[in-house]
């Protein structure tokens, strides 16, 4: 779907590895997760809750909520608003997210 442009400082600074559906993607620290995933030609990045229709990022600025993805096990994150971090595991979201796993109770005061 997308690639670095010909005149970009291509090799320079591409030093982050994230995993999309277990496949590594080499990207820059300034990339958003959505941008990095688009480098890998993902086809689609989520299926909708209502009809399971395939969707992919649309606006890249945080207003369309199409880029919702599972990042490190937490679903419904706007991938275009999350900067990549080395080792991140990103997955497509499939319909309605599951209830997140056990978490600490609040009020640790």
């Amino acid at each position, binding site marked *: *779907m997308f690639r670095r442009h010909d005149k970009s400082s291509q090799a320079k600074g591409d030093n982050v590895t994230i995993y999309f559906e277990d496949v590594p993607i080499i990207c820059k620290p300034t990339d958003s997760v959505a941008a990095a995933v688009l480098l890998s030609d993902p086809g689609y990045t989520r299926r909708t809750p209502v009809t399971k229709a395939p969707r992919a990022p649309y*606006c*890249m600025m945080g207003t369309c909520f199409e880029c919702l993805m599972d990042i490190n096990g937490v679903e419904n994150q706007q991938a275009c608003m999350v900067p990549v971090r080395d080792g991140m595991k990103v997955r497509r979201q499939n319909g309605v997210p599951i209830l997140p796993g056990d978490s600490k109770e609040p009020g640790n005061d």
Partner: protein
Amino acid sequence: MTEPADLIVIGAGPAGLAAASLASKHNLSVLLLDEQAAPGGQIYRNIEHNITHESETCAILGAEYAYGAALAETCRASDVTYTPGATVWRIDPDGSVAYSVNGAAHTAKGRRIILATGALERPVPIPGWTLPGVMTAGAAQTLLKASAMLPSGRVVVAGTGPLAMLVTLQLIDAGADIAALLETTRKRDYFSNAMLLPGAMAGQDYLRRGMAMRRAIRASGVPIYGGVTELEARGDGQVSSVRGRSGGERLTFEIDTLLVHDGVVPNIQATRQVGCEHEWYEPQRYWRPVRDSWGTTSIDTITVAGDGAGISGARAAEYLGQLAALDAAYRLDKISMADRDSAARPIRSAMQPHTAIRPLLDGVFTPSFTTPHGDDTIVCRCEEVTAGEIRTAVAQGVMGPNQIKSFTRCGMGPCQGRNCGLTVAELIADVQGVPVSDVGYFRLRPPIKPVTLGELAAMDLSETDS
């Protein structure tokens, strides 16, 4: 922040940066909140990184983009407390703001607030617009700015508005394979409006530049089709072709990416959530906050600046930010009214050529996709509500956007109507035969962006002294 700041500025695009910097210069304590990791908003997205590390990308984006570096630098050098990565999710008329940074929710209070939340793309509800591979022209430009990326396969750009032409040219320059630019601008608008401008040289200058861009696009081998109608994206699971009609000719292009654009509209999520009054701007068919000549809204503590107040472009945004800052300084007793007014004079003069071309631009690039023709076209992307469902509900007597929301779930999804609010209003107006301004808009509720229950539960509400 334990004490209220003098000023909270929300948005670090040109309006927000300029407002924050100038306010700080006038000895106001300023908190600048922005959801991106770096300053620049959308128009100057990633400017600091690109200026230093991506000279080639800067060359493609041109001098107008590079201009933003100075705005960012001035703000960084000032005493502004700049908090990037801050997603504002609630604003109150008393100056309270709730926002989240790094998974923790905070509150802050300002004696005044300047909202500089900019613009977003008008929805483009054509058949197939929800297919993977269909994106906005702005999205492609953002990928260029933020990640030095461009579409790897065959691209068509379709729609109307200065950005459609600009992005086409920039992508060509970057090496993209653009099959065509399909302009939905009505030919009669081009010609009738070209005559419009009463002696404004800026307008003619703009037209000349526009013509030059079109020549450059054609010279690179990319055809431009005009007066395009019946635009449709097609594909199975992702976009594979785009169809349209130009003159008598049926057009079809096999593509991997379709970039659509129908102009930009003010981002009114924040102004509506806090309860400002809005007015309908008919030439470009959008809602904008009611404001005075300094940007003060119907809520006295809240000022708007930049495209969020009404589309006027990046340069005007900077000046509007400065005017808002001057007014804030005056209202907070840092400068006299006379000083405010005399400082404002050169700013208004400098702004004038940038706002003078607006009537021309607004008249030429009228929205193309306000009312989807087919009943199967999706209007609400989040909840997958079609134009037909909305028309049926209206015909059954459901009169307003909020009732439509209750009846069809249109507007209840995560985007809160950002991509369907205008379309719904146009559809209701169309079926009822009333002006869109009478129809109204969704009632927008907090949170402006989602926030976790855990963050809410753990928030320290005593951070702001009421």
